[in-house]
């Protein structure tokens, strides 16, 4: 098993990646304060608009998809006659 292990399998390294990711997230928001973002619409001139908008709309899309899934999800053998026997 040792031979196939990858540095990404080490939980320590994954934690480091997470920290790096959070630092980059913070940097992109902070950079917004120093660069003129040329807002085209008023809403865009709010500080960190793109970050917040990206995060919130994604949460909404996931929740929306889940809600739709409650009604529309079926087992993957639903169209049984068409499914390949695996």
């Amino acid at each position: 098993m040792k031979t196939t292990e990858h540095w990404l399998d080490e939980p320590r390294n994954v934690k480091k990646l997470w920290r790096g990711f959070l630092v980059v997230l913070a940097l992109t928001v902070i950079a917004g304060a120093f660069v003129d973002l040329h807002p085209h619409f008023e809403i865009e001139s709010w500080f960190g608009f793109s970050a917040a908008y990206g995060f919130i709309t994604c949460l909404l899309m996931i929740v929306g998809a889940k809600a739709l899934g409650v009604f529309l999800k079926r087992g993957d053998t639903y169209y049984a006659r068409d499914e390949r026997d695996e």
Partner: protein
Amino acid sequence: MSSVVLHPALLLIAAALLLPFLRGTARNVAVLSAPTLALIALWLLPEGKLWQVQWLDYTLAPLVVDKLARLFATIFLLMAAVGGLFALRQKSKLEIPAAFLYAGSAVGVTLAGDLITVFLFWEFMAVGSTLVLWSAGTPTAWAASRRYVAVHLAGGVILFAGVVGQILTTGDASFHAMQANSLATWLILIGFLINAGAPPLAAWLPDAYPEASWSGTVFLSAFTTKTAVYVLIRGFPGTEILIWVGIFMIFYGIVYALLENDMRRILAYSIVNQVGFMITGIGIGTEMALNGAAAHAFAHIIYKALLLMSAGAVLAATNRRKCSELGGLFHSMPITTICGTIGALAISSFPLTSGFVSKSMVTQAAIDGHLQMVWLFLTAASAGVFLHAGIKFPWFVFFQKDSGLRPADPPASMRWAMILFAFLCIALGIWPDPLYALLPYAVNYVPYTAAHVITQLQLLLFSGLAFFVMLDFLKRTPTITLDFDWLYRVAAPAVVKFSGGLIGGVQRAGSALFSGGIQLVADFARRESQPQGLLRRSRPTCSMGLWVMLMLAGYLLLYYVG
């Protein structure tokens, strides 16, 4: 120059017909050289109407070249060449010829200057793509191909009705920008939109494409929807309803892809999503928007093929297609992982990839037109693309929990096809000028400004954060999501079965009643024709005389009253 003009589409279709007779190295050389030669032939063509044919009362123009046509024909031929390389080791000897017929017909549509030629190649595309599906050779592919071809033939009939109506009312067969203001033009628009994967019939795409072979889906992803984008750019630019059709497609693709478990069906839903961006651009209809739609189609064909190649490599190596059964493949498939991830970044419009320089033009067009609502939708959708395709696909296939599978990277032909397209995804992202030079209108757009890069990074990285925060919500389950195709796969057959039973019952009851009645009359006639029966009885003369007198009296009365 004018005497010997080769039609690139016919060149590729001729190669498709020749290929089944070749074997071994000769076949491989032909597979790679046919699209390449067609590409050279295309670029040797000058602009203008090159072929004109009189047919009945109409002037047909089967070979017309302008910038838009050349752009789409170029990417279709490039796709045929690299797809051919990827599929070189495909066991089915039908698939590549079918794919070349399909690609050649798509090129034929882009170079057609009249509606009749458009329609002919349109139908050849349906044939070619169905053959690509068949060559997978599985029962599911066969079943899916029957539904697929039914939808496309129906779309073809609608398109044909529209084309005939348009020619009858205008007397002009040429294919140019139209307004959706008559029955005929509406029918043409609907025929085009069915192939684009527009609602309500979008389900044909995620239903059929993932059932093709590991290489077949790569071909299928490229031509049908993007040919539809091409004809919409040429035929219906600035048709406002397309903005909303496109936005619906964008969110439909995201929501269904988020719920999906089959890795190639995730990518199929994301085709609808990406074509939605193009359709929205066509609806906005400004030069910037149309350039954006065309550039996005070009970039999209490359990164979507790349994504499906990486998925195809996984499928060919593991014979598994469900995210819930995959994971941890980066250990043993590093090249596939890297190429798939590059495709995923490109589809998400990450800076330094092709998606960044193409999709942004559509968004910019919404800004320029002060369409704030459209812009908000497009921006949310950009974040959603990263969510459903940019992270979800590579995460669940190559990373997440280790499935224990350790398949090797695919053979050289497949590897090189992926590397080539991965290179193009990044090259176009870093150096978009050659692509911009190919676009139909002059490009006055600079993608790399500090503001644009920072806002895009904020948007994408925070949608990435949302993905990992909500990961428990996104855990894959072995499920499918019902779509519009439920209506024709379950509801309609059930209605037919039920009403068939009902009609059968009524029919049986009716025929029982009817035959009973006949039986009754027959029995009566038989009984009464016995010697003592009513029909054989002899009658006395005096009673006959009485009856005649009564009839004459009645006649007299009527005569008097009349």
